């Protein structure tokens, strides 16, 4: 019983710490994209979502039972549910889309949402394909 509780606490801590680091990485990359590269903040959200989707699928495939890399459940939760979950954001992407709609820019709102979702799914698939190739 205590063992089960300790394991659950370990997983929660792994996810929480990973999410804290992932969120900070998102915040810092937003600073680089907006303040240093002087690009629109929309690119910052797009960037973290595409990168985080690649990492989660690459890592998940590499560490699956028949994968090349052996990682325990706390480690998997730290990287996947934690870091990647904290790095990527559905809420900021939805808010960005809503604000474009509010400004009457329906075309840009649709283009933005569809392209970020499509690019994230595409990069997740790429991460899967690359890790599956390494696993062979």
């Amino acid at each position, binding site marked *: 019983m205590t063992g089960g509780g300790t394991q659950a606490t370990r997983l929660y801590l792994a996810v929480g710490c990973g999410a804290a680091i992932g969120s900070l990485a998102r*915040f810092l990359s937003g600073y680089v994209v907006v303040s240093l590269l002087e690009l629109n903040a929309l690119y910052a959200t797009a960037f973290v979502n595409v990168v985080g989707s690649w990492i989660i699928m690459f890592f998940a495939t590499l560490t699956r039972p028949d994968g090349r890399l052996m990682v325990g459940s706390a480690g998997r939760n730290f990287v996947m549910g934690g870091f990647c979950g904290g790095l990527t954001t*559905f809420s900021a992407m939805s808010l960005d889309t809503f604000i474009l709609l509010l400004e009457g820019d329906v075309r840009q709102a649709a283009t933005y949402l569809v392209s970020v979702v499509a690019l994230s799914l595409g990069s997740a698939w790429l991460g899967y394909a690359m890790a599956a190739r390494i696993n062979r």
Partner: protein
Amino acid sequence: MTLAACALVLIGGFFGGISRFFLSGFVGRGVGETFPWGTLAVNVSGALAIGAFAGAARAVGGVFASDLVRDLIVVGLFGGYTTVSSFCLQTLNLALDGERQLAVFNVVASAALCVLFVALGFWAVVWMAG
């Protein structure tokens, strides 16, 4: 870009992440893991929350419009809570398992519901603030 801002994002992200882990696990155990209802519930509720916060920043201002509160709540908590990576992982897994219709449904439902719930949260707060 201050140390205080970074610390607030770390704290918000920590609690956002564990809230997501709790809710997605809770929903998943409740309704089964075949379809990622847990992640959908997380993203839709996070969309409602960020919409409400954006509405408060616009209609109420004050603390809701402060940069540091925004860093803690919007960037850290809501950003760490919601996720595109798990959404992609689960969508791709559905497609790889041959559940193409469910994969397409997950994409369309997530995108449409999240934007809708941002609007609901935003307009509800703007309306209540008069």
